[in-house]
């Protein structure tokens, strides 16, 4: 199927894009890489009157070092993030998650900001963004504001980005020297995760000094496994200690039940994947 007809705008600056959004309001939809939006339009699940393509706004692309944070432009393609040496060094968790997102062709088009703005609870980037305590820079008619990861994901496919706003960049605090693993559980190739765990830890002399754990597809938004984080701190990075902490993985979650698995199955999966992810991130396996 092909999309219903729409008018097409391709602004070259964020200001122009905001003006277009302001003018068309509800009737407009932003197009980033199109890897989630085009399937939606083709299935006629949505039929905006105007599509505003951010593809020609070059200032939204690229990754830069900004002292204690990396700044990733919203329109930076997954494949660029995947191979970026700064991301590999300072935000290893993101490199690990992007590597397993979709397939090569989709990663060449889909963007970092587009995936986060889409806020699919099964999307692979929300949990790493939460775990790394990323900050979301959002431009609107009244200027620019910054939203913490904890406040960015509101509900299923819903974020803090207002209808007249655009996500411009994502600031990721550097986690240099932290070990990281993204454990994605799928049954067939290039599928969204049934459950996935994003874990990054700082180990000091065999002891877990700090830990951040994000969960994918364990509720209507990505979630932080704070009980696990608290239980890990000060523990040795051993199988037994990590297993005990991982038992808290499903606390406070509300996993869906669908054809891929019941909620109880997902809760069990989360404990297994948290254990594997933390042990691997700590370099124990």
């Amino acid at each position, binding site marked *: 199927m092909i999309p219903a*007809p*729409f008018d*097409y705008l391709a602004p070259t600056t964020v200001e122009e894009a905001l003006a277009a959004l302001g003018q068309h309001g509800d009737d407009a939809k932003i197009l980033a890489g199109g890897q989630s939006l085009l*399937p939606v339009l083709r299935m006629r699940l949505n039929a905006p009157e105007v599509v505003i393509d951010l593809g020609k706004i070059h200032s939204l692309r690229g990754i830069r070092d900004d002292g204690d944070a990396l700044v990733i432009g919203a329109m930076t393609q997954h494949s660029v993030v995947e191979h970026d040496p700064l991301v590999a060094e300072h935000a290893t968790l993101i490199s690990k998650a992007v590597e397993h997102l979709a397939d090569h062709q989709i990663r060449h088009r889909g963007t970092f900001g587009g995936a986060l703005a889409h806020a699919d609870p099964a999307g692979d980037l929300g949990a790493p963004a939460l775990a790394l305590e990323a900050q979301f820079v959002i431009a609107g008619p009244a200027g620019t504001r910054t939203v913490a990861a904890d406040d960015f994901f509101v509900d299923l496919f819903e974020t803090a980005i207002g209808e007249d706003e655009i996500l411009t960049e994502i600031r990721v605090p550097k986690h240099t020297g932290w070990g990281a693993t993204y454990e994605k559980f799928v049954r067939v190739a290039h599928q969204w995760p049934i459950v996935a765990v994003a874990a990054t830890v700082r180990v000091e002399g065999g002891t877990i000094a700090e830990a951040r754990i994000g969960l994918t597809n364990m509720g209507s938004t990505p979630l932080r496994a704070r009980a696990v984080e608290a239980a890990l701190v000060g523990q040795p990075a051993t199988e037994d200690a990590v297993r005990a902490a991982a038992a808290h993985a499903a606390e406070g979650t509300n996993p869906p039940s669908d054809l891929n698995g019941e909620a109880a199955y997902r809760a069990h999966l989360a404990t297994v994947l948290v254990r594997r992810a933390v042990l691997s991130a700590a370099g124990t396996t």
Partner: protein
Amino acid sequence: MTRINLTVDGSKVSDDVEPRMLLVQYLREKLGKTGTVIGCDTSNCGACTVHLDGTSVKSCNVLAVQADGSEVTTIEGLAQDGELHQVQKSFRECHGLQCGFCTPGMIMQSVDLLKENPHPTEQEIRVGLEGNLCRCTGYHNIVKSVQHAAAQGGAQ
């Protein structure tokens, strides 16, 4: 209608298109390049894979207007001066196809894969082709074809 200018298989083209027109439709219906095929409705199968500014994309999941100003290479533009690309030769040599429907996409993705990684392991080939589905071959001879192409210097 929106005006687009792009280069397809080495030729400059310019057209007025409906913004909702998909790149794959543009290639097939406007330019008659039916070598690029449509195998699904969900952007899963990879049969429609082409190169957009040198990297592989699923042309059913790109609007023609998004390709404005870009360079597109389809399976029809891979052969040079009447000589098949090494990856095309290897698919023929190793019998990397049965019905052939997935083949244009498999070959375009394999070319992209070899450009990034000229000497992939078997596992790297399988992962590199994970966005391309084949209903016939069980992938065995496809993987062999890519290994053959790599051995022949197919990355060029």
